[in-house]
C-alpha cells in the first residue's frame, strides 16, 4: 500500500453521500461503489498506522486485511444508514466504521499466535523501581494496597479482566474474542473492577495514588 493511496482525498462532496445511498438503481450502485472506496481508504490508513504490530505480513497481506475491513464496514454503514442524523459530516461518520473494523482486525492478527496469560497472579508490572527511599516506602505501600485490592475486592472475572487488560496489555478486542465476549461487556467488567479497586484504596487511606 502506498502513502499516496492512504492519504488521497475523498472523491465525493460529503453532503451528497447520504442522499445518493438512499437513491434508486444506478445512482445507488454508484454511491455504494464510491462508499467502498472511501472506506477502503480509511481502512488502509488505519492498517498503515498499525503496521509495526504486524512485522511478518507483506504489503499484500496488509492490503487484504484492509479490503476485508472495508467490506465489513460497508455492510455496517449500509445496515445503519438510518442511524445517521446529520450531526457530523457523513464521511466522518462512515470513516469510524472502517477504522474500527481495521483496528480490530489488526489487533487480533497481531495476537493470533500469542498465548494469553489470564492468570491473575501475573502482577510483574506492579514492581516499579523508585527514585528515593522515601518514595520507595510510599510506593511499596500503594502497590501492596493495590495487590491486596485485586486479590480481595474483586470477583474472579473482574480480576481476570483487570489483570489482562490493565497489567498484561492484552488488547480488549483480543480478550473479548478469546473469552467469547465483546468490547463493551468487557469494558463494563473493567469499569466495575476499577470502581471496587478505587473504593478499596480509599478505604485503606489512599486517595488519587497518595496517602
Amino acid at each position, binding site marked *: 500500500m502506498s502513502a499516496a493511496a492512504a492519504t488521497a482525498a475523498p472523491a465525493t462532496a460529503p453532503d451528497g453521500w447520504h442522499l445518493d445511498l438512499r437513491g434508486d438503481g444506478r445512482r445507488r450502485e454508484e454511491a455504494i461503489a464510491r462508499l467502498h472506496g472511501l472506506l477502503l481508504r480509511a481502512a488502509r*490508513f488505519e492498517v498503515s498506522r498499525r503496521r509495526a504490530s504486524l512485522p511478518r505480513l507483506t504489503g499484500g497481506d496488509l492490503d487484504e486485511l484492509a479490503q476485508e475491513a472495508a467490506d465489513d464496514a460497508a455492510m455496517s454503514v449500509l445496515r445503519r444508514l438510518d442511524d445517521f442524523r446529520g450531526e457530523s459530516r457523513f464521511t466522518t461518520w462512515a470513516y469510524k466504521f472502517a477504522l474500527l473494523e481495521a483496528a480490530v482486525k489488526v489487533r487480533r492478527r497481531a495476537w493470533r499466535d500469542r498465548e494469553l496469560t489470564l492468570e491473575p497472579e501475573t502482577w510483574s508490572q506492579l514492581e516499579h523501581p523508585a527514585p528515593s527511599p522515601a518514595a520507595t516506602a510510599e510506593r511499596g505501600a500503594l502497590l501492596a494496597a493495590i495487590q491486596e485490592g485485586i486479590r480481595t475486592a474483586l470477583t474472579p472475572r473482574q480480576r481476570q479482566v483487570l489483570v489482562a487488560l490493565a497489567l498484561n496489555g492484552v488488547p480488549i478486542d483480543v480478550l473479548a474474542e478469546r473469552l467469547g465476549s465483546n468490547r463493551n461487556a468487557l469494558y463494563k467488567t*473493567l469499569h466495575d473492577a476499577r470502581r471496587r479497586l478505587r473504593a478499596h484504596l480509599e478505604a485503606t487511606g489512599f486517595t488519587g495514588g497518595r496517602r
Partner: protein
Amino acid sequence: MTTDPDLDLTLLRLLGPGEPEVDCDECFELLDRYVDLELADEPAEEILPGVRAHLAGCPACAEEHESLRALVELDHLS
C-alpha cells in the same frame, strides 16, 4: 497522581479515569460528532460529556479516536 509518570500510567490503567464516562458502545456512537466538534474548536466535552474520560480509560477507543481525528484532519488539508 504521583511524581512518577510510569506509575501514573499504571495507576490510570488500573483505576481508570475516576470520573463519569460513557461506555465503548456510546463512545463509538458519539465519536464522529466528537471529532468534528474538536476540529471545529467547539467544546466537545461540554457538548458530549463523558467521552474524554472514556478515551482516557479505554486504549482501544482512544486509538480509534486518534485515527479518526487524523484522517479527518487530512481531509481538511486537501
